[in-house]
């Protein structure tokens, strides 16, 4: 490991200039590496969006939104139950969280919190493998086959709506049939999941000619079950959709607006 051969007084070999041949070899090795990477990439994700996908979920088509009325919500938990039944989540895993807030307004209100499906979603930006991404309609979705379970998205989500499968879910669904039956397959152990806005219903609606927000089979389960119509869903670009109508004449807020995430879930303030 001596740097200088003291007997012969030769210079260390690395000080010798690189031959052109060696340089060309090095370059071609680099090039081959890049080609191999590209091939791998093509093999695994020919169907995928371009690499430098921007994090914006802004779209041309319908702008799906949910409007939750803090005035009318009675805190009955039915949206929580229906969500758990429909999406088949484990007992302690709620995609839709209900918390009573007694401090903010003159009267106590119930705040339910699904995924906000942000237009600038921090989770989409931070995922190292693009397992969470914006669908073409702008909703934030998960690819459970790609997720490595690093949970950086959970660190980054400002709303704490993401849940991790800490173990295999083998228990029967804790909700009775009355609240609904599973419509999506269970997720495996070790991946992150979250509210999908019942995108499986939205996708089926397009095929069956149903209108999300109007037809029960094409609307998120939490909105369908609400006994007091405190949750409305629909295309916010359509002024006559249930969601747009609910916003009319009311003061609406989004959570943590200062972060600029542009959530798709709006809350109507109590009157």
């Amino acid at each position, binding site marked *: 490991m001596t740097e200088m051969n003291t007997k012969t007084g030769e210079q260390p*070999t690395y000080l010798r200039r690189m031959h052109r041949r060696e340089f060309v070899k090095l370059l071609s090795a680099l090039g081959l590496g890049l080609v191999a990477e590209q091939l791998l990439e093509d093999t695994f994700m020919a169907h995928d969006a371009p690499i430098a996908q921007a994090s914006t979920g802004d779209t041309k088509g319908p702008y799906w939104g949910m409007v939750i009325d803090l005035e009318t919500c009675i805190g009955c938990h039915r949206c929580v139950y229906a969500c758990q039944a429909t999406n088949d989540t484990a007992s302690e895993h709620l995609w839709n969280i209900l918390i009573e807030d007694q401090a903010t307004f003159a009267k106590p209100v119930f705040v339910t919190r699904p995924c906000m499906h942000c237009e600038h979603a921090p989770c989409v*930006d931070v995922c190292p493998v693009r397992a969470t991404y914006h669908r073409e309609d702008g909703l934030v979705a998960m690819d459970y086959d790609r997720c490595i379970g690093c949970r950086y998205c*959970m660190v980054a989500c400002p709303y*704490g709506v993401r849940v991790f499968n800490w173990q295999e879910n083998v228990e029967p669904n804790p909700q009775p049939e009355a609240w609904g039956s599973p419509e999506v397959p269970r997720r495996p152990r070790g991946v992150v999941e979250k509210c999908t806005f019942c995108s499986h219903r939205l996708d089926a609606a397009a095929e069956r000619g149903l209108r999300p927000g109007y037809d029960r089979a094409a609307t998120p389960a939490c909105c369908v079950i609400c006994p007091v119509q405190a949750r409305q869903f629909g295309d916010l670009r359509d002024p006559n959709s249930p969601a747009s109508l609910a916003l009319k004449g009311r003061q609406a807020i989004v959570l943590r607006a200062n972060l600029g995430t542009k959530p798709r879930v709006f809350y109507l303030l109590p009157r």
Partner: protein
Amino acid sequence: MVERILKTRGIFWMWCALLLIPIGIGLYSALQVFTKGLVVTNLSDLAPWGLWIVVDLSCIALSAGAFSLSALAHLFGRDNFKPIARVAVFVGLLGYTGAMMCLLLDIGRPERFWHGWVFWQTHSMLWEVTMCITLYFSVLLLEVFPMIVELPLFNRFKWLQNLGHRIHRFAPILAIMGMGLSLLHQSSLGGTYGVVAGRASLYRATMPLLFIVSAVAAGMAFTVQMTLIVQWLKRRVLVPRDVLFQVGQVAGAILFVYLYMRFWDSTAGAYGYVPGRSESDLLLTTGTFGLTFWGWEIILGGIVAGTFLIMARRRNSIGMLLMGSGLTMAGIIANRWNTTMLAFTQPLSTEPVLTNPASVRYLPSLVEWGTALGIVAGLTLAFSLGMRFLPAYKGHTPTPVASSGD
């Protein structure tokens, strides 16, 4: 036969055998994690990162001596730093091995560890870190490879040894690559936290700078510490005494630069109100983190450690150097712990409603401690074996006359 080995090399092999106990505990704990899933940890949806991330961040920070000392030795003309750079490279290789073992435990689908290389997400700090760390790990492997093939074991494979010599010719190029990759990922590990806008205690532009400056100080000091311990145990000299003092002084100076930055970063929130940030600064400096922040990280692991590192040369005191570098190591671990834990202890408020949710508690479970213990013990064993058998770390017997300095 066995008796004779024990008689001549007894203490070393007993030490190795002793290390097998924590390694066994670690393997058993890791088996629990891989078979039952992360449910055996105390992590939760509200505190998704914990002890493993702290160990991972600490390992990488303590390995920063590899790139900084290699750069000084091979690129900035400090030829007398070459012996300590050699030690640093080995420490670095082991540190990154430990970090990657932590990550493998931490991710929920370890069999998909390769996804980052195939499914690029160039927006993600963690993707950048993944690429850099794996690339830098291969640089470290190339740097250590020539030393490994010098073992008598490889005398039969001349072509391997020739390959080693050829690779060693590229030491300066490897040093450049190592420096570039390290400057990127040592900072972007801080950036991984720094970009998280949703968590006030993390969201600060200073994070990448704080991470790299502290890592360079701690990495250098840790290399000095390891060298001192090895020299004392082997009773041989690997690195000249004055080089150790010099590196200690450089590390101490960088540590003080870091402390200055950290001081303002942590207390600026008290001068005016920034939502979330001011609360987290208060929690760090006066709340539950008061002791680990002021006592462990700033005073002992910072001011005292830096003073010892700098004063040791003038006092010509190896003891002081050892204390200083040891405290620096403790300080960097405290810093990574405080940074990680503070982020999840501060409740995630979703203003304008639910501004005051209950705070989260997280303490690592026994399984988490077990795996961490196993990883540290495994690295210690590998380090012991390397220092004992690799010809590059043979050293020479100390001479009573002080060798000429720089």
